[in-house]
């Protein structure tokens, strides 16, 4: 179904160009707005030519929102989530594909069902667990009456507590499970010939050896693809960092953008907000550009 005619080519090129234009236009407006001063940016209509204050606005946004440490936080958070997901998903898929054990299908479907439960749906229980990781166990002890028994017997009140709020662990750990990633690996592992596993067994490699020496190196492109997607996803997270980091020291760049949005009765300094947005957009863009070569290969086809 590959048809080649000059008119068709022209039309498809035109359509692609229109698509590109409509995708890039908002970014252009952000960049232009970030280059004007307060008066020009609030003119109606806003001029569509760049002004001379771009660098000043960037510096102002950086300082006002304290973006330096926030971007470091964001990088730690996003990289932690991405690496965690890449590793946990590989390990989970390894277990699902290569081992036969009781309850394997239950595990498989449990993972599958989490696809239908994104973070926003389970935010309250997830927050409760992050606030005290041991709370489910505490609940078990309370319900089974062990707490009561121990109190009666010894007078000691059992109260398990391990809070993760306002820490990198709390930001990262609850987000590193990923069904999507697990399935990406699963599909890849299923394409590998069984003989490879058998050859490794004949060579004397155990399961862990096989995982690290054969499976992980072979899934490099998958890891790059998954890592990139998940880095961008984590970078853009708003709700979770907002809930978990009440202490400003652990805030991420994306939640910090809120600080730059003009208040209802404040100065309408949108040029600063736009400049801040540009800064915060930059790191994931760099990651995508840097990883693009690997990323596409991982999604398109398995390396033979």
């Amino acid at each position, binding site marked *: 179904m590959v048809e080649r005619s000059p008119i068709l080519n022209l039309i498809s090129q035109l359509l692609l160009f229109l698509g590109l234009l409509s995708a890039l236009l908002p970014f252009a407006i952000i960049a232009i707005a970030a280059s004007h001063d307060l008066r020009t940016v609030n003119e109606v209509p806003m001029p569509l030519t760049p002004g001379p204050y771009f660098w000043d606005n960037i510096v102002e946004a950086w300082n006002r929102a304290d973006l330096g440490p926030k971007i470091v936080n964001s990088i730690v958070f996003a990289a932690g989530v991405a690496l965690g997901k890449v590793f946990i998903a590989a390990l989970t898929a390894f277990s699902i594909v290569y081992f036969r054990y009781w309850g394997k299908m239950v595990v498989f479907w449990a993972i599958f069902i989490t696809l239908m439960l994104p973070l926003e749906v389970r935010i309250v229980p997830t927050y409760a667990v992050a606030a005290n990781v041991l709370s489910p166990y505490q609940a078990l002890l309370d319900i089974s009456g062990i707490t009561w028994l121990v109190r009666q017997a010894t007078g000691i009140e059992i109260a398990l507590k391990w809070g993760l709020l306002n820490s990198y662990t709390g930001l990262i750990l609850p987000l590193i499970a990923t069904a999507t990633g697990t399935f990406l690996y699963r599909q890849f592992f299923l394409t590998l*010939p069984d003989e490879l596993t*058998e050859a490794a*067994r004949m060579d004397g490699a155990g399961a862990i050896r096989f995982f690290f020496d054969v499976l992980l190196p072979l899934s490099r492109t998958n890891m790059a693809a998954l890592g990139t997607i998940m880095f961008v996803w984590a970078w853009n997270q708003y709700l979770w960092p907002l809930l978990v980091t009440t202490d400003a020291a652990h805030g991420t760049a994306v939640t910090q953008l809120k600080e730059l949005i003009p208040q209802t009765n404040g100065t309408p300094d949108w040029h600063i907000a736009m400049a801040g947005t540009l800064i915060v957009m930059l790191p994931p863009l760099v990651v995508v550009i840097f990883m693009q070569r690997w990323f596409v290969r991982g999604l398109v086809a398995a390396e033979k």
Partner: protein
Amino acid sequence: MAEVAIRGVHKSYNKVPTVHGVDLSIADGEFVVLLGPSGCGKSTLLRMIAGLEEITAGEIAIDGTVVNALEPRERGCAMVFQNYALYPHMTVAENIGYALKVAGTRKPERRARVAAVAQSLGIAELLDRKPGTLSGGQRQRVAIGRAMIREPKVFLFDEPLSNLDAKLRAQMRIEIRRLHQRLGVTSVFVTHDQVEAMTLADRLVVLNHGRIEQIGTPTEVYRRPASRFVAGFIGAPAMNFLTGTLAADGRIAIGSGAGTPVTIGVRPDEIQLLDAPLKGTLDFEIELVEELGTGQVFYGRSGEMEMTVMRNGGGEAALPRSGQRLFLKIPMTCVHLFEVESGRRIDLPPSRLAAE
């Protein structure tokens, strides 16, 4: 080096039996070929020796030790796979040396042994390449090198040549045979290719439907096939089977007659092709002629029966064409007799046959 004893081995997949009680003992240093059509259980048997499949019942002993419960690496076997199964992300040297790396051999020793193995297989200049850049024959050599480096007690080959083209296959066959002569390691080779089997084997094991049909040297299996299945499976073109009878005095007759009904087998190259009828000859109408260079194969029918006849030599002038009528003489000293029901071979003393 070791002998392998297979005693009453059964294999079932989900209660469906695929291997039904195989007994086989392989002597130290012997080259045994398991031959059979696809689905006959030959690969399963090999994989049970390797430890890649569990043994449902019976036992396998290598070098006197029962290995049923042992992991593949503890059995001292090395295997060469049909699709090579090289690790695509490792160089040839890493592929060959991986077993040593897993075993914790130090790097200098590992490098020396990899170099020695590569040298002996003629792949020394490929050591830094990745498998993806190698040809089929080179990959197969690397796979053999990977098996050799472990200095195994038993070599297992799972149809290793079936992915190669015909010329390379013949060449690798000779190389594998040479390798066996040099190393003298007990080897088990699985194939469905009878030429491969005949040329490689010290002893041939013909399998069908998960049972051993016959064990013997290639000559024995070809000259005295133990069953109709073996007779039809070994030899190309395949043996002709005619219905006939065996009288009490040992006289064999083609077609119906007095006596026990039997299946008469006769190889296409043992039938004589005649221009004129003699006593006891059969009519033969040629339908197809295949020119082999060294001879011709004629496909045709004799009455109701399909027959294949092979003739060696033969000048162009005398070449019979399709549609031509000729006459066949079947020398009764060359025929093989099989029971109609069971397909087992009926052995008659040659003297009685010659009396015909």
